[in-house]
Structure formats: structure tokens, C-alpha cells
């Protein structure tokens, strides 16, 4: 799965299907610290994802 990150980085991640939370756990990110969207729409942590989904992970910047 192609995963985009805020800031512009893209990573290829081995992930067939599962929830947003599964994906985040798989790549070692705490869901409390990010917001995830698919094809431009923000999605809840229990949304089911498939390998071809376009996923963007936005890390929440602290402060302010």
C-alpha cells in the first residue's frame, strides 16, 4: 500500500487490508498522534482499508 505522510513523504507499506488502526499499529504510529484521510476524506480509526486505497497520514503538530 502507498501511504502518504503530511510533509510530502510517501512510503510503500506491506498491508493487504484491515482497519486504519491496524495499519497504524503495523507501521508503529500511535493513532492519538495522527489524523488519517482516504481519497481526501477524513476517516475514523475503525474504517476498513484495502491495498489500493489512497491514504494520507497527517501528524498532529504540537503546540499553539
Amino acid at each position, binding site marked *: 500500500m502507498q501511504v502518504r505522510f503530511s510533509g510530502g513523504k510517501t512510503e510503500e507499506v506491506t498491508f493487504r487490508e484491515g482497519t486504519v488502526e491496524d495499519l497504524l499499529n503495523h507501521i508503529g504510529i500511535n493513532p492519538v498522534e495522527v489524523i488519517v484521510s482516504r481519497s481526501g476524506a*477524513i476517516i*475514523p*480509526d*475503525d474504517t*476498513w482499508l484495502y491495498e489500493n486505497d489512497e491514504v494520507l497520514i*497527517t501528524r498532529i*503538530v*504540537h*503546540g*499553539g
Partner: protein
Amino acid sequence: MSHGHSPRCSECDTTAVFLDREHARHLCAAHFSEYIEDQVLATITEQELVPPGSRMAVALSGGKDSSVLLFLLNRLRDRLGITDLVAVTVDEGIAGYRDETMEAAGSLCQGLRIPSICISFNERFGETLDQMLVGREHRACSYCGTFRKRLLEEGARRAGASLMATGHCLDDEVQAAAMNVLRADIGRITRELPDKGRGPFIPRIKPLSGLMGREVALYAMLSGLYTELPECPYTPHALRAEVRGILNHLERDRPGAMRLMMQNYGSFRECMRRKAPSLPLGRCLQCGAPASGESCRVCTLLREGSAGSEVRESQPLHR
């Protein structure tokens, strides 16, 4: 083509944007925003934080939390009986970071037609934060926090405000509480909060203190207030960054943990106050600001700065 399982809003059955783990429900964008506004109203009214007819200063850094704060207070101002809102922005002088957030603060005020006051470390103390911190980067947060607080107070006075709101969310509050306990900082633990006009400071309130940082960020995104901004370059030096990581893990494994810790901290404070009542505030001999000893924090740090880098670190928990 794969939109197999898209959770629906528990209130209206449209597409959800948020899983509220604490209350085991889903919310769509509209119901999520309503929930956030209700939470903020509840925080303010339950604690009777805003007397009707208030002229309120809002500490606005330009980051997501303070932007959401200003946006929400503006939206709720009639319901809260706020007569005037004034934004107060402090430019600490942090290269490669503050310019962008200052710009965001300015354009938000313009968009909402809210007057603003800006004060910089440089104009007030003769040095930017970057200049103050050469050789003592690990103390960035205590320098920055102390001086910023003073300038916010001065800005609020200049604005003629009767009240000042800051954008601290639940995460910030729990992190501060945990650090106070880790350092056994009895003075901070037992200090009376300046939220009801007791003491010499302009009363300060934290309308977002019932919301998780993640909820504030999501509200910012849904309201078009979230811009990709750089992070403060001093963040990695801070003990707070580690405390934040630990608390976020707890929250992930036990939804609601932060809220519970904050409630418990409240009981702990009460108990500590009875054991160690806080010292009455006097006046700083140098600048006349409220101080618990002969010298306020601002004057103490300014003196350390001019004494050079031989001044030793006193907090035990820094690396």
C-alpha cells in the same frame, strides 16, 4: 474500488469522520463540530469562567489550538455574553518557525475582523528567544514560557481586558501535571489558579481544557483552520516531548486515561494545598510584578542570562 466499510454517524447515519472511543460512538463532521462547541460551552459555563459583558483577550500564537480557540470564542460570543474579543500575539523570535505562525495569526484576525496586539521579546527584552538561548537550548521552554506569559499579561492589560483565554487542551494540562509531579514542584502544584480573579493577575481561563489535542486538530481541519506549519525547533530538547509520548501511549491503551488523570490530579492538588499552602505573593523588587520571593521569574532569568552560561541547571530531570 474499495469503500467496503465506512462507519456511519451514530446521530444521523451519514458518513462518520471520527470514532469517539471514550463514548463508543461515531460522529459525522457536523455532529463532531457540534460536540466540540458543546464541550467548550460546558467547560466555560460549568466553571462560571466568563461573566457576561467580558472584554476578553485571547492568547493567539497562530498554531492550531489558539486558532481554534479564537474561532470558537468568536462563534460563541453572543451565547457567552462576550462584549469584545482582542487577540494578543507574542513573537518570541524563533528563526524558521515563528514567521509562518505569526502570519497565520494575522490572517485569522483579519478574516474574523478581530483586533490584535503584537509584542515581541526583542522589543521588550532587547533579545530574541534564539539569542537568549545560546548555550542553554535545553532550557528553552522555561525561558520561553516565563517571558511569553509576562508579555501576554502585558498585552491583555494594554487591551483593557477583564479576562484572558489560552488555548491549552487536555493533553497540555495532563503533561504539565505529570511534569509537576515528576519534579515534585510543590509550588506549581499548590498554586491557586488565576481563573476567578483572585490575586494580582488578569484571570486566565482555558476553554479547550476538556478537549483532546487530536479533537482540536480535527476541528481545525474541518473548519479550514489547519495549515501545515513547522514545529518549534526547541521541541526535541524538552522533557515534555517524552512525557507526551508516554501519556499518548496510555491514552491509546485506555481511552479516557488523560481525562481521568486530570480529575485525579485535581484531588491531589486539593490535598497538597492543605499540607503546603502556597506563599502569599509579594512584589518583585526589580520590576514590581507579582512574585513569591524578592525577584520574579522574569527578572531571575534575565539576570541569569547576563551572568553568562556558568549558571548551573537546577532542575534534576533534564538530560
